């Protein structure tokens, strides 16, 4: 199992358990776990409605990709460790990571 912690927009912390080897993005996992994220564009890095912030985890997860930066640049608020959940593939090295849901608009 890969164990993640999600901090929702009210500040509540919830664990999410994900079986190893599933080929999903963090956005898909959050949607399936009934978190309130729109993911309007279905994971194409176009809509920014799956905006999350990395709070704890391996260093490489703190840096958004170029495609993510293009979209994040259009938002009113971002953090240096802001990411688009749809661009993060779930892998085993993510065990123990903490993400915060951002945006909500």
């Amino acid at each position: 199992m890969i164990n993640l912690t999600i901090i929702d927009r009210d500040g509540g912390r919830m664990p999410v358990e994900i079986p190893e080897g599933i080929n999903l993005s963090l956005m898909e996992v959050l949607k399936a776990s009934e978190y309130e994220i729109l993911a309007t564009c279905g994971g194409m890095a176009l809509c920014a409605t799956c905006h999350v912030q990395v709070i704890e985890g391996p260093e490489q997860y703190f840096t958004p990709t170029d495609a993510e930066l293009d979209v994040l640049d259009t938002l009113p608020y971002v953090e240096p460790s802001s990411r688009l959940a749809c661009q993060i593939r779930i892998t085993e090295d993510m065990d123990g990571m903490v993400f915060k849901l951002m945006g909500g608009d």
Partner: protein
Amino acid sequence: MEQITTDICIIGAGPVGLFAVFEAGLLKMRCHLIDVLPQVGGQLSEIYPHKPIYDIPGYPDITAQQLIDNLMLQIAPFNPTFSLGERVETLNRREDGSYDIKTDDGTSVHCQVVVIAGGLGCFEPRKPEIDRLADFEGKGVAYMVKNPEHFRGKKVVLAGGGDSALDWAVFLSNVAERVTLVHRGDTFRGAPDSAGKVFDLAKEGKIDLILKSNVVALTGDDSLQEITLLDRNNQVSHIEADHLIPLFGLSPKLGPIAEWGLNIDRSAIAVNTVDYSTNIERIYAIGDINTYPGKLKLILCGFHEAALMAQSAFKYVFPEQKLSFKYTTVYGVSAF
């Protein structure tokens, strides 16, 4: 205040709302469309205009914007009318069963049938946290440029770092007295062309470019007068402004439709799949906004729903007439 009378009022000018004009038109029903966006096309034009779509029957691939352009050509013979850049706010039923629809701009539409083709909802601007922002909405603060002339000779501040902020900064630099672009970052990742133009205009002194800064507060009496900025080193500065246009993209919200007494199931309107009617007589819901067992949010499915809706709506628009089924190949597309 505009007063419009039509047979069917369609809320939402996305692909499904547009195609509904065609299906209604074949049955001689006139349509008026309202969309909060300044352009037609819904998600296709707003979110992914240049992406190819592969599951439109008869088109191995077609870009989203091309599909919308084709739909506009296809419905042109039926002369639909549009209120764009306006948000539908209220719906009132008259005693004879017909409806009056009102927008936030004061447009009023009297119609026999209402078709909600509102997709994921009303595209609403993302609003930054700026002190007293709401106080100046409509009094200097606007979230889209509906008519650039409105800004002629004015001091305009744009906030944002995306393509629309860049493009409007370039455009308005020829219209406004002064254009200031405020961006949180120090580079622009939008289209290289637009970014280049903005930097050139800034060098020529035609645009004031303020980077690594955010708008944090607004001041003024009746209307906006001054904007407070905060930079990365926590330095505060002030600029005079008649208008602030924050451009941080749009995000859909169900909006006023949620308060009309319709059966809503997880942000979608429950419909009867016989004709995509809602629980309220003369109100239909088609496309992404509706839900029923097996619903797929696809353009293809919305088109089908539009056809069945039109056949059913006919009885309210022409209560005296009997509907007979006709092929376009036999009867053509007789315009009106």
